């Protein structure tokens, strides 16, 4: 099987879906790149190069460079979606959601319900999040908790190249608005990815390690760290299950509760400040649905309640580390 990067896996899903369905269009800032300039148009492919190569293949009607106007980008994508296209809008950094959130949570997410079930809004918002790039407080957040609590949205957090391709393919074929949260620290991570198109269903957790001593639930860029922690613990004889729900909405509650039934110990790793985080949400799920199964308090490994700091040593301390995950698991034993 070909080994490609997370970035390339996303690019491949976009290319294959655009080739398969003429309704799929890309819009966003520099998704082609260079529009109106004196040099090569379409040579950039987004600030991280994720959409590189698509403009030359599909042209300016399908790979649409926009002004830096996030409300108009997301709103126009929502309007195009509800009238029959299948747009994939790029919101460069998820941090920029503040300037266009109305179009996401008040408009696109609510069309179907407010209109009595008569609207379909097959919109994908691709965006990137996460710390570790020394990008400072306004280019490093995750923000999935804010999105996950919005009824009408689906929220996807791919943690590997394989998942990125299969989940994005699913997202583009989905008839509801989907926010696809890419982890920028994973773009260069490589893994096996089938050449042909495939879908990974939403709401189905991936089991990366299977052990009976404790359950770790992790999302996005925290998944490789949870796996590393599990492997370290295995050397000490502690067998841990690692679950990646892959989507925070819908959330595979069943997989979490089933695993908890077996292990009785739960640690949630969430790259997010702690209040109203997915960690808090899943802890609430455990105590409300599986209280009798719990043998220890639920371990929450999150960021502190602070903005993301800039200084490299501070930022490294901000993000949940493998060591903190190991420590949290041990605390439950």
């Amino acid at each position, binding site marked *: 099987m070909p080994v490609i990067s997370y970035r390339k896996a996303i690019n491949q899903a976009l290319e294959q879906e655009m080739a398969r369905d003429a309704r799929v*269009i890309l819009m966003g800032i520099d998704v082609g790149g260079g529009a109106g300039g004196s040099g090569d148009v379409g040579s950039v492919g987004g600030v991280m190069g994720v959409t590189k190569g698509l403009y030359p293949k599909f042209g300016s*009607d399908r790979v*649409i460079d*926009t*002004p830096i*106007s996030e*409300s*108009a*980008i*997301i*709103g*126009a*994508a*929502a*309007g*195009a*979606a*509800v*009238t*029959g*296209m299948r*747009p994939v809008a790029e919101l460069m950094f998820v941090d920029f959601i503040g*300037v266009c959130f*109305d*179009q996401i949570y*008040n*408009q696109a997410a609510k*069309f*179907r*319900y*407010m*209109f*009595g*079930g*008569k*609207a*379909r809004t097959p919109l994908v918002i691709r965006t990137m999040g996460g710390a570790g790039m020394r990008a400072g407080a306004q280019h490093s957040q995750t923000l999935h908790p804010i999105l996950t609590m919005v*009824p*009408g949205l*689906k929220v996807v957090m791919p943690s590997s190249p394989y998942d990125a391709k299969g989940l994005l393919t699913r997202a583009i074929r*989905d*008839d*509801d608005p989907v926010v696809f949260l890419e982890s920028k620290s994973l773009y260069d991570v490589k893994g096996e990815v089938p050449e042909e198109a495939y879908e990974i269903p939403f*709401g189905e957790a991936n089991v990366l390690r299977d052990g009976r001593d404790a359950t770790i639930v992790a999302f996005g860029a925290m998944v490789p760290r949870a796996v590393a922690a599990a492997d370290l613990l295995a050397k000490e004889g502690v067998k841990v299950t690692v679950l990646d729900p892959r989507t925070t909405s*819908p959330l595979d509650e069943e997989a979490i509760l089933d695993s908890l039934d077996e292990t009785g110990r739960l640690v949630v790793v969430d790259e997010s400040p702690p209040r109203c985080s997915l960690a808090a949400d899943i802890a609430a799920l455990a105590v409300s649905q599986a209280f009798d199964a719990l043998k220890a308090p639920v371990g929450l490994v999150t960021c502190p309640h602070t903005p993301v700091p800039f200084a490299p040593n501070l930022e490294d301390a901000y993000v949940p580390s493998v060591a903190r995950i190991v420590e949290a698991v041990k605390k439950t034993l």
Partner: protein
Amino acid sequence: MQLNRDELKRAWRTMLTIRAFEERVEKEFADGTIPGFAHVYLGQEASGTGVCFDLTDDDQIGSTHRGHGHCIAKGCEVEGMFLEIMGKAGGICGGKGGSMHIADMDKGMLGANAIVGGSPPIAVGAALTQKLRRTGHVAVAFTGDGASNQGTTLEAMNMAVVLKVPMIFVFENNGYGEFTSAEYSVGAKSLSERAAAFGMPAASVDGGDFFAVHAGMREALEHVRDGNGPYALETRCSRFLGHFVGDPQKYRGSEELAAARTNDPVLRFRDRVSEAALLAIEELNAIETEVRARVDAAAAAARAAALPDLATLETDVYVKY
């Protein structure tokens, strides 16, 4: 352009339906049969009617919190609308939208919108669909003097010019954004001047005159259907009532309030077509009687209608979850 008798009757019927509907909403609201808020379109009937007159079900509009008139002008049925704004089963949105969220995709009505400036970006997207599919159809965003100051509207105007989409921005300037006058809150000399600065042609017409709005819209449609990108049309309107039904309007002087009623688009239309002998007063009256009977029956039926089934509370959040 001269309209024929059938067209004149259609315009009269639409304007009167809006007038009768909104007068009935006022009464029902006072009776307590309409939950929540109601923002009525009284005084602005000629604007929505003139703008939508030459649109088809395949052309799309995005609307505002004051959207009943736009819905009717775009072809939504008053029966379903009354059920909807009373929160009843069988409403156009199953009672889950309400007055500020009436939408009818089959009629190209992409929703009233309770967020000021919510519609323009969405209408840009609808126009983008029309452009990419080369349909020859257009999208219209209704907004007002209030939304003209909203960032989403300004972003949408630039985006529409950049993407060269077949879209018309209609600014219904009724003089007030909620309780604050446009004179105070709009920094530009005029809405059309501001729109023109974005790089699109813009015109301003008397929104109390159906014929002026219709003629303005014809020009706008000609421009956008020829693939020239967007167009902006300001319709200067009178808001007879306050921001919402029950607003005492202490912020408007008594002279101004009285003057607002003198620019009555319904009376102006009646006088003009009857004086020019285009339609006989008897014909106009007959349509009025018919329209008022239909609106009253729709309201009465909605009052008596069943509430939505509680099982619908959790349906239609997603196509599939």
